């Protein structure tokens, strides 16, 4: 977990850096957008963009720009529901969306934990993650999100190192239909087949798969 102190110090640093380079291209991550309501990402997603685990705010650093761009567009359109992100995304200009998603994609992601396909699961959550539950048409999470959930391409975001609370919230949103911005209902139908216990289990599993330093 990232301490509040660290977030604030990082934010202050980035604000200074941001203003230094702000003449060329606005640093949306550190400064926010040009229009009212476009708060800076750093306020919730942390100085390093790695999220705020305790609050369930996701990591953005190192995520594919195309994926992030789609999420911001979907917040705007309502295809992805979030009371916090919706007004914020609406306040960003197209240019700001392009520049901030590009900047986020370039920020360093936590080192992935190497995990080979041949590793056998040792509990029911790992079984869903690594093999799936085919009696319910649930493929292994890693078959789309990649080995150890590192993410694949622009459509399948990383799960590794995301806060468990964020992953749980998203799976619940897929289940309820509050989130329905996946291609061809690929995620929706899977989430709807998971039990509450499995949701907790796989979220805890993937949040633990990260080289990120864990602090109490």
């Amino acid at each position, binding site marked *: 977990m990232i301490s509040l102190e660290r977030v604030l110090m990082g934010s202050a640093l980035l604000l200074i850096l941001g203003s230094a380079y702000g003449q060329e291209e606005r640093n949306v991550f550190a400064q926010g957008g040009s229009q009212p309501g476009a708060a800076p990402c750093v306020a919730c997603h942390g100085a390093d963009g790695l999220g705020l685990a305790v609050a369930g705010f996701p990591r953005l650093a190192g995520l594919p720009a195309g994926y992030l761009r789609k999420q911001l567009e979907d917040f705007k359109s309502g295809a992805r529901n979030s009371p916090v992100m919706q007004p914020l995304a609406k306040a960003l200009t197209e240019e700001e969306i392009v520049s901030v998603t590009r900047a986020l994609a370039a920020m360093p992601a936590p080192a992935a934990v190497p995990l*080979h*396909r*041949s590793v*056998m699961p040792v509990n029911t959550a790992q079984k869903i993650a690594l*093999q*799936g539950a*085919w*009696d319910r*048409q*649930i*493929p292994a999470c*890693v*078959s*789309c999100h*990649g*080995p150890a959930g*590192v*993410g*694949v*391409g622009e*459509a399948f975001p990383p799960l590794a190192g995301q806060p468990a609370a964020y992953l749980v919230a998203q799976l619940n949103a897929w289940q309820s239909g509050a989130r329905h911005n996946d*291609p*061809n*209902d*690929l995620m929706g*139908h*899977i989430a709807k087949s998971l039990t509450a216990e499995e949701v907790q289990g796989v979220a805890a599993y993937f949040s633990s798969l990260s080289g990120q330093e864990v602090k109490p």
Partner: protein
Amino acid sequence: MKVFLFAPVLGILISLPVLAATIAMEDQSQLQAPVAAHPASQFQPPLESELPDNAYGALVRQGYALFVDTKRLAPQFVGNGLNCSNCHLDQGRLANSAPLWGAYPMYPAYRKKNDKVNTFAERLQGCFQFSMNGGTPPAADSPEITALSVYSYWLASKAPLGAELPGRGYPEVPSSANAYDLTRGAEVYKGLCAVCHGAEGQGQKVGDSYVMPPLWGKDSYNWGAGMHRINTAASFIKYNMPLGQGGSLTDQQAWDVAAYVNSHERPQDPRLVEGSVEKTRVKFHANDGVNLYGQTVEGVLIGQGIR
């Protein structure tokens, strides 16, 4: 090297055509079109938790590892980017996805086309040579074939011997006169398949390893693989694709998209006869289900191979 030691021995045992020494099993055609499994009557393979903690259990686990991580663990026998589990879903356990428990009890099997009895080991060697485009396959008594055979035996260990279990293979998908349309297939591909397999069928990688398998091109199955048949690919797709949404396509969509995928170039059939696509077509493809090998589509000869 093994080829040269191996060839005279095989030559004594059975008369083989020229060049056949490196091809363990020429015939990749279906034994017989299987029927779909109904969940209620479906065979249930044993659970990993039932594996004994002894040498046998350890070998089953080795076979499992090879099956799901083939490219990394047996790189010398895999010439493309695939793993066994790409075409045999759920680690070879899933009904209607050519499960190992459905295949193992059907061998040894006589095949009219190559006029000989094929062992399960030879069937696995065929997978390596064609589906994995692996060149000379692991020997029948190699650690790889042994581990994969033991894994298959274990999955089939409560199955009746020589009986065709429901869910074996990829069940036949009816088609009126085997009709398909490549343009319609391209639309299906674009709408439902490209998100994972890429706009050009190239698959998607993490690092140097494929997560979503390439469907054509140099890293996919070759022209000798069973999956190059449009009817076989239609069956696989109908029952298993998109991943986790098996059964969602219409029969016609499955045929159309299968034809679209299998109209693209892939590595050459290793049984290539005298360097001639036409001779290879006549010998191996003319009576092998529905396929485009050696045919001309929109002025282009299909089956020229790709490196």
